[in-house]
């Protein structure tokens, strides 16, 4: 991919730390703060000392290996959408971003840097300003898409270094306001959009009643807490809060497939901001809620609705964060749909989706989750004109909204500059619809389409399958 120069270059390194909502949360004496689960910034504390202690305490073997092994070859540069769109700005490159934590590691932990720091450019943050600068780099200039990781000859996993550093800063409350807000909501309510139990149940009833208006679906239900089902369905709070059509689409398909399924009344949120904030405690608590709900309901397996980071968190990372050995199978709903189609449990007519469709691989699903062919198989069965975008699968570019960046408004202008790569990639397909299996990507791609005035719309697999149904 050629470099695509952004119209302008915006530096985010010096954006200030905004703690207004942290102050309010402390003033409100939120339970999560009282119980020391949600951390806030204390300007009077020795944050640098704490940061360094946490670094030494939390470092794992994969992190240490990735910190030690970089040879500064620069091959990662052209794999990063930030670097590609800012060819004249070396601070946008993965190696520079990773080096910001690497130099601290070298100064505090690695041998050579402790004795001859100047020889390896090792250094220690001098104060909270440096930590804030680090925050802006690891939260604001990287979507942790892991594209550079898969392009590193040494196998350096820059994305885990970014997440590791985010986690240290989260402990100190040195985080973007949006990250704090979402983390607060997850600690306080168990879901990232502070959906109340009443909102949850009413939305499900509303969707059920809408579906039942179709005489052919009169017996349809959206069950909650039904024990002994084939699977427990878990969703993204965005589906409740902003776009419940996907719940209706799933319910309709499950009904027509003759599935015995349920949603849990608690532990239904498969998203997990711990992935983005680097907070393993939050990640573990949320994942455990979900896994335990499935056991409580004696579900046969866990099915995860279309969500990239939710899939990665629930299917893979959550078990590690929660220190919970997987006891039930879990899968993406896309795999469930693929099974229905293969087993002919639902009937479809692909001519109902006659617009050209392309597929955007979510980073968390493809590069960190290993699921690339299943959505394509489904799309080929339900769309008349499916076309690949280039590059694709594990080489696809991020939607630019990954890594929690959608919640960090202060970095949006830079994100939109970096989106030039994605815009060109989308435009080149000639498709009218771009399908993705990630809610984050839906919003990220919508931003790209709007910003670059592309003539296309974002859809998800459930929508296309539902539209192709014959019943």
């Amino acid at each position, binding site marked *: 991919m050629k470099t695509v120069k952004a119209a302008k270059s915006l530096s985010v390194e010096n954006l200030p730390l905004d703690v207004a909502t942290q102050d309010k949360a402390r003033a409100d004496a939120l339970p999560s703060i009282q119980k020391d689960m949600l951390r806030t910034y204390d300007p009077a504390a020795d944050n640098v000392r704490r940061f360094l202690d946490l670094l030494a305490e939390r470092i794992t073997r994969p992190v240490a290996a990735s910190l030690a092994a970089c040879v*500064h070859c620069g091959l990662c540069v052209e794999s990063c959408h930030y670097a590609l769109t800012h060819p004249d700005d*070396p601070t946008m490159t993965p190696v520079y971003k990773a080096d910001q934590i690497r130099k601290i590691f070298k100064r505090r932990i690695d041998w050579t840097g402790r004795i001859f720091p100047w020889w390896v450019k090792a250094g220690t943050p001098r104060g909270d300003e440096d930590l804030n600068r680090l925050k802006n780099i690891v939260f604001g200039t990287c979507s942790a898409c892991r594209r550079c990781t898969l392009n590193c000859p040494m*196998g350096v996993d820059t994305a885990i270094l970014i997440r590791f550093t985010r986690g240290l800063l989260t402990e100190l409350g040195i985080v973007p306001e949006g990250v704090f807000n979402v983390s607060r909501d997850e600690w306080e309510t168990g879901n990232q959009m502070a959906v109340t139990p009443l909102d949850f149940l009413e939305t499900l009833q509303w969707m059920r009643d809408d579906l039942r208006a179709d005489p052919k679906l009169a017996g349809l239900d959206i069950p909650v807490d039904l024990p002994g089902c084939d699977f427990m369905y878990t969703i993204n709070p965005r589906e409740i809060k902003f776009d419940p059509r996907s719940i209706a689409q799933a319910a309709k398909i499950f009904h027509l497939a003759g599935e015995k399924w349920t949603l849990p009344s608690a532990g239904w949120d498969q998203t997990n901001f711990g992935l983005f904030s680097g907070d393993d405690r939050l990640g573990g608590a949320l994942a455990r809620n979900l896994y335990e709900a499935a056991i409580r309901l004696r579900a046969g397996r866990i099915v995860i609705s279309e969500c990239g980071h939710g899939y990665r968190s629930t299917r893979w990372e959550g078990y590690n964060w929660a220190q919970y050995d997987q006891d039930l199978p879990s899968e993406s709903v896309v795999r469930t749909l693929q099974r229905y189609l293969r087993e*002919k449990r639902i009937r479809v007519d692909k001519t109902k989706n006659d617009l050209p469709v392309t597929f955007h691989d979510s980073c968390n699903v493809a590069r*960190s989750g290993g699921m690339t062919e299943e959505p394509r198989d489904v799309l080929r069965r339900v769309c008349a004109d499916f076309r690949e975008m280039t590059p694709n699968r594990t080489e696809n570019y991020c939607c630019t909204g990954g890594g929690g960046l959608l919640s960090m408004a202060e970095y949006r202008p830079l994100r939109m500059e970096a989106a030039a790569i994605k815009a060109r990639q989308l435009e080149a397909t000639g498709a009218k619809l771009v399908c993705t299996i990630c809610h984050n990507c839906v919003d990220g791609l919508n931003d790209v389409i709007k910003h670059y005035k592309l003539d296309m719309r974002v859809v998800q697999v459930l929508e296309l399958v539902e539209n192709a149904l014959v019943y």
Partner: protein
Amino acid sequence: MSPLLQFVEDRLQIAALLFMASVYVIRVLWLFHFRAVRERAAAEGRASAGAGYSLSNIARPWAMESTRTRPLFYLQFVVFHLGVTAAIAATFIIPYAPQWLAPRGRVITFQALMAAAFVVAVFRLVRRLRRPVLQLVSTPDDYAAITLMMAYFILGILAVPNRPDRGEGPMIAFFILTAFFLVVVPFSKISHYLYYPFTRIILGRTLGRRGVLPVRRPRSRQTAEERGEEVGA
């Protein structure tokens, strides 16, 4: 052969090698003292297959976009490391199996490999000095490593004919530099090859379990219908 050359070829090398081996053992133990991460999710792929794929990436330039789209860069990598291998091999062959280097063709091959590696090293140094991102991240260690390797290749070219009768200076310098490398390498970026298996295996095992690695290539670009499968209604 002078006692000095004899000493730097043999005893000095053995002492330096023992030192390097000891430091490497400590280095590996140091890496292992960091907590390992146990994967608790049920695997969809094989960790060993992922690790094998990841580890052998070095021999598959088509596997990564970064090397696939830059064949010249990959070729430089191969040439440089063949030169390194030749230089290291020479440090063992000259003192312990000098007859192996008796045929002129072998000497010329070794010299050619190191000369080509020297040229690549010059390219790499220029690249490091010219590209803004590499200027920004490069450390004195990075510059020293490539510069010392350039000196090493030159001395290696002069040393492999193994003709102390024509002057011992280059050979003594070659072996002293070898000993210096053996002592310094564990503390410099040149020790990256020690980490390579660890980073590669760790990443490969993680992504192998998830079915990301080995990278799955589609069986066919044909649609399911084109493959003769009955689809939908």
